[in-house]
C-alpha cells in the first residue's frame, strides 16, 4: 500500500517537474557536499523533462496497480522498498546535469532494477535471467563509463553544459569513439540488436509491475542517452551516424517483431515487442539525423516528432499490456498462451484493457501507435532524394522494413489477444480465472486513457512535442515540426491526416452497417444460441482449438531461414501393429538465433579464461594480501 502510493506520488512529482521543465526554463541544482571534488549537478532541460514526465506517467499507473498486486501476490518487504527507489533512480537519470551524476543515477537504476528482477529468486529461471541481466547491464555501463570519461576529459569539464560549450572543438576521432561506445552502452539498455539478449529473459521473469516499469520506462533511458549525448551534445554528426542508427533500428525492429510473432509466452512476446518498438524509435532517430545532415530540416523535424510520439505511445501501451498480462498471471498463474484462452468471459475488464494495448501495439488506426508510425512513414517517403543516392536507397528499404514490422506486429498482437483471451480455456487454471481487484483495474485504466488520447487526440501533445523539438537543433529542431491539430499537417508537404475524424467516421460507418443488417428483420425467426458446428460430431473439445504455436506455424515456416526452429516429431506405434499409431509427440524449440550464434561462443571463451585465472586463487588469505601489496607497490612506482 505505502510502496505503491509512494511510487505513484513520485510519478506525479515527476510529471509535474517534467512539464514545468518542458515549458519553463531549464532547472539547475548543484549539491556540492554530496560528492567530493565535483558535487552532484542536476540540470533539467526540455529533453530531460520530456523523459522525466514520461517515466513519471508510467510510474503513476504502475504504482496504483502495484497496491493491489502486492497484496494479491504477497510481496516480501524488500521489493516493496525497492520499487519507489527504482522509480526515483529512473527520474534522476534524465535530470542529471553532469557526467558523474549521470553515471551514479544510471548505476543506481541498474542496481535497483536488478534487485527487483531477482525478487522471485526461488525460481531457477529467474536466477539465470538475473545473472544474464547483471552481466550485460554492467558491460553496457562500462562502455558508457569509458565514453563519458573520454568525453569529459576532452570536453574540458564534468558538467554537460561545459561539454556542450566545448563540443565544437572535439576531434573527429574522439567524437567517433564516444559515439560508438555510447551507442553500444545505451543500445544494450534499449534492447537493440545484438545486445538485446537480456531483455526477453529479464522482462518476463520480473514481477509484472516491474516488467512494466522496465519495458515502458527504463528502456527509454537508453534512447534518452542516445538523444542527449550523441545528438544533443555531440551532434550534428556525420552522415554515417544517422545511417548506423537506421540500420541498427531496422534490424532490431524486424528481428524483434519476428521473434514476437512466433513467441508463445505472453510476457516474452511483449518483451520482444519492446525490442521492436525501440528499433522503430532508433530508426526514426537515425532518419532525423541523416536527413538533417543533408539539410532537409523540415522532414528531419517530422522524423524526430515521430520518434518522440513513438516513445510516448509505446510507454502507454506497453505499460498497459504488461499490467494486463500481470493480472492474467496473477489470476491463472499462466504465461503460456497455449494454455490460456476464454478469459474474455471470466475477466472482461482485463480483456478490454489488453485489447486496447494490443490495438495500440499493432499500429492500426484507432490504436495508440498509429500516429507515430504514420509520421515516420511520411518522413521516410518525403525525403529529398533528388541527386542523393544514399537517401534514394535507404528510404525505400527502411519503408519496407517498417512495413514488414507493422505487418508482423499485427500478427503477433492478434495471436496474443485472440488466442490468449478469446475462444475457450485450454487449461483448468485458465477456466478458473477471476477478475483483478479494483486498484489494479484503476492502474490499467490510467494507461488505457493515455492510449486513447494518443489514438484519437494527439492534439493535446502538440505543444509538448514542439517545445522538446526546439531543444534539438541538430536533428531538425530549427524548423517547425508537424502541426498536431485535429488535422495532422505536414509543413511544406501536401499531406494530412486526422485520427479523431477517422475514429468518428468509423463509428458512424459501423452503425450504418448494423443498420444494413437490420433490413428484413421482421421476417426472421427468433434468434437462437446453438452448439458449435462440429462437422456432425457431438461436441468439440477445447483441445481441438488452434494454439499460439499452431497459429504462428505458417510464419515460422516462411521465415525458417531466420528463425532456425528445431522441431522433431516422434510417432510411437502399438506393439501389435506398426500401422496403429499410439501417440504422436511434436516438439518445437525456438531459441534466439542471435543468442546462440553470438553469445554462446563468447561465454565459452570467458569460461575457459576464468578457469585459467582460477589457478591464481589457491584460497590462502596471505597470498591475496600479497597480491594487494604488490599491486599497491606497482601503482606507487608507476605514479611516481
Amino acid at each position: 500500500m505505502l510502496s505503491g502510493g509512494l511510487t505513484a506520488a513520485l510519478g506525479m512529482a515527476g510529471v509535474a517537474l517534467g512539464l514545468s521543465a518542458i515549458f519553463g526554463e531549464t532547472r539547475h541544482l548543484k549539491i556540492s557536499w554530496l560528492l567530493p571534488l565535483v558535487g552532484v549537478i542536476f540540470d533539467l532541460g526540455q529533453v530531460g523533462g520530456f523523459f522525466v514526465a514520461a517515466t513519471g506517467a508510467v510510474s503513476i499507473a504502475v504504482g496504483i496497480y502495484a497496491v493491489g498486486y502486492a497484496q494479491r501476490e504477497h510481496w516480501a518487504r524488500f521489493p516493496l522498498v525497492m520499487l519507489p527507489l527504482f522509480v526515483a533512480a529512473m527520474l534522476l537519470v534524465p535530470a542529471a546535469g553532469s557526467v558523474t551524476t549521470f553515471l551514479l543515477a544510471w548505476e543506481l537504476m541498474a542496481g535497483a532494477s536488478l534487485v527487483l528482477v531477482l525478487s522471485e529468486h526461488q525460481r531457477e529461471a529467474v536466477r539465470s535471467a538475473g545473472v544474464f541481466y547483471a552481466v550485460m547491464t554492467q558491460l553496457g555501463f562500462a562502455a558508457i563509463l569509458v565514453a563519458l570519461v573520454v568525453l569529459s576529459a576532452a570536453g574540458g569539464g564534468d558538467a554537460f553544459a561545459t561539454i556542450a560549450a566545448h563540443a565544437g572543438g572535439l576531434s573527429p576521432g574522439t567524437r567517433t569513439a564516444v559515439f560508438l561506445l555510447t551507442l553500444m552502452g545505451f543500445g544494450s539498455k534499449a534492447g537493440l540488436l545484438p545486445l538485446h539478449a537480456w531483455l526477453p529473459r529479464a522482462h518476463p521473469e520480473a514481477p509484472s509491475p516491474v516488467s512494466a516499469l522496465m519495458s515502458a520506462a527504463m528502456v527509454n533511458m537508453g534512447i534518452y542517452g542516445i538523444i542527449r549525448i550523441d545528438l544533443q551534445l555531440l551532434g550534428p554528426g556525420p552522415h554515417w551516424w544517422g545511417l548506423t542508427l537506421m540500420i541498427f533500428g531496422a534490424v532490431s525492429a524486424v528481428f524483434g517483431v519476428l521473434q514476437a510473432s512466433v513467441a508463445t509466452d505472453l510476457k516474452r512476446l511483449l518483451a520482444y515487442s519492446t525490442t521492436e518498438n525501440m528499433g522503430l524509435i532508433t530508426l526514426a532517430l537515425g532518419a532525423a539525423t541523416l536527413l538533417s545532415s543533408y539539410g532537409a530540416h523540415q522532414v528531419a523535424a517530422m522524423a524526430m516528432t515521430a520518434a518522440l510520439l513513438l516513445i510516448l505511445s509505446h510507454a502507454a501501451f506497453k505499460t498497459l499490456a504488461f499490467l494486463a498480462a500481470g493480472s492474467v498471471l496473477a489470476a491463472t498463474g499462466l504465461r503460456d498462451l497455449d494454455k490460456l484462452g476464454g478469459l474474455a468471459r471470466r475477466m472482461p475488464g482485463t480483456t478490454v484493457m489488453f485489447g486496447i494495448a494490443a490495438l495500440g501495439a499493432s499500429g492500426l488506426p484507432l490504436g495508440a501507435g498509429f500516429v507515430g508510425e504514420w509520421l515516420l512513414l511520411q518522413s521516410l517517403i518525403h525525403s529529398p532524394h533528388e541527386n542523393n543516392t544514399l537517401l534514394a536507397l535507404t528510404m525505400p528499404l527502411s519503408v519496407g522494413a517498417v512495413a514488414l514490422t507493422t505487418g508482423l506486429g499485427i500478427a503477433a498482437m492478434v495471436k496474443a489477444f485472440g488466442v490468449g483471451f478469446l475462444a475457450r480455456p485450454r487449461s483448468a487454471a485458465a477456466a478458473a480465472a477471476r477478475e483483478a481487484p479494483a486498484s489494479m483495474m484503476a492502474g490499467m485504466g490510467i494507461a488505457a486513457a493515455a492510449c486513447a488520447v494518443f489514438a484519437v487526440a494527439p492534439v493535446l501533445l502538440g505543444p509538448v512535442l514542439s517545445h522538446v523539438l526546439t531543444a534539438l537543433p541538430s536533428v531538425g529542431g530549427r524548423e517547425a515540426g508537424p502541426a498536431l491539430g485535429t488535422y495532422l499537417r505536414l509543413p511544406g508537404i501536401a499531406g494530412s491526416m486526422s485520427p479523431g475524424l477517422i475514429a468518428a467516421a468509423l463509428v458512424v460507418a459501423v452503425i450504418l452497417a448494423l443498420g444494413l443488417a437490420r433490413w428484413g428483420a421482421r421476417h426472421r425467426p427468433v434468434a437462437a444460441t446453438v452448439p458449435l458446428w462440429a462437422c456432425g460430431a457431438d461436441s468439440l473439445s477445447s483441445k481441438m482449438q488452434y494454439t499460439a504455436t499452431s497459429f504462428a506455424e505458417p510464419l515460422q515456416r516462411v521465415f525458417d531461414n531466420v528463425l532456425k526452429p528445431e522441431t522433431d516429431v516422434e510417432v510411437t506405434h502399438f506393439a501389435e501393429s506398426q500401422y496403429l499409431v499410439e501417440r504422436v509427440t511434436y516438439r518445437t524449440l525456438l531459441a534466439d538465433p542471435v543468442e546462440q550464434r553470438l553469445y554462446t561462443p563468447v561465454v565459452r571463451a570467458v569460461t575457459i579464461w576464468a578457469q585459467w585465472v582460477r589457478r591464481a586463487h589457491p584460497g590462502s588469505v596471505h597470498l591475496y594480501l600479497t597480491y594487494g601489496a604488490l599491486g599497491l607497490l606497482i601503482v606507487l612506482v608507476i605514479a611516481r
Partner: protein
Amino acid sequence: MTQATYNGVLNLAAGAFLLAAVLIVWRRELRAIVGLLAWQGIALAAIPLTEGIYKHDAALIVVGVIVLLLRAVALPLLLIRAVGTEPHERRESTPLVNTTTSLLITAGLTVLAYAVTRPIIALDPSPATRAVPATFAVILIAVFVMVSRRRALSQAVGFMMLDNGIAATAFLITAGVPLIVELGASLDVMFAVLVLGLLTGHMRRTFGGTDLDQLRELRG
C-alpha cells in the same frame, strides 16, 4: 518523334527489359523462361530502334532490326529446340537458392545497380543514360541466374541475359555500337548457344540429365 514520347518509350523499354529479367528469375517453367527471353530481346531491340528514329540514324535502325531478328527470334527458337529435346526436363529443378530468397537477392542487386551507376548518369544526365541503371541491373541479375541455376539450359538463358544487358548498356551509353561489333557479339552468342546445346546433349547421354551438379563426378 517528340522529346516526351522518346523519353516515354525509352523508359518503357528499359522497364520492360528489367521486368523480363525479374520474371525469368521468378519462373521455373523452361518454356516460359525462353518466351520471356524473347520479350527481353524485343525490349532490347526497341532501344536502338527508338534512338535511330529519334536521331534519324539509319545505321542504328538496321542494328535494331538485326538485334530483333537474332535476340527475339533466332536464339529463342534454338533454345526452344533444346528444350524440346529434353522430354522430361521441362522445369528448372529446384535452384540452389529458393525462389523467395532469389527474388529478394534480385531486389538487392537492382538497388546496388542503381547505386553504382549513379556517377554514369551524373556524367551526362540524358534520358538514355537515365535508363542505364535498369540495364546494368539486368547484367547483375544475369550473373546471379548463372550462379544459382542447376540446368545447363537455364545457364544458357543466364548467359544470353548477360549479353542482352551488356548490349543494352552499350546502346544507351554510346548511342549505338558499330554495326560490325554488334554482329560479332550476337554471332558468338549464337555459337555459344550451339555449343551449350551440344554440351547438354552430351551430358544427357552421359549422365541421363543436365543437372550441372553431376559434373562433379568428372573429377578423378
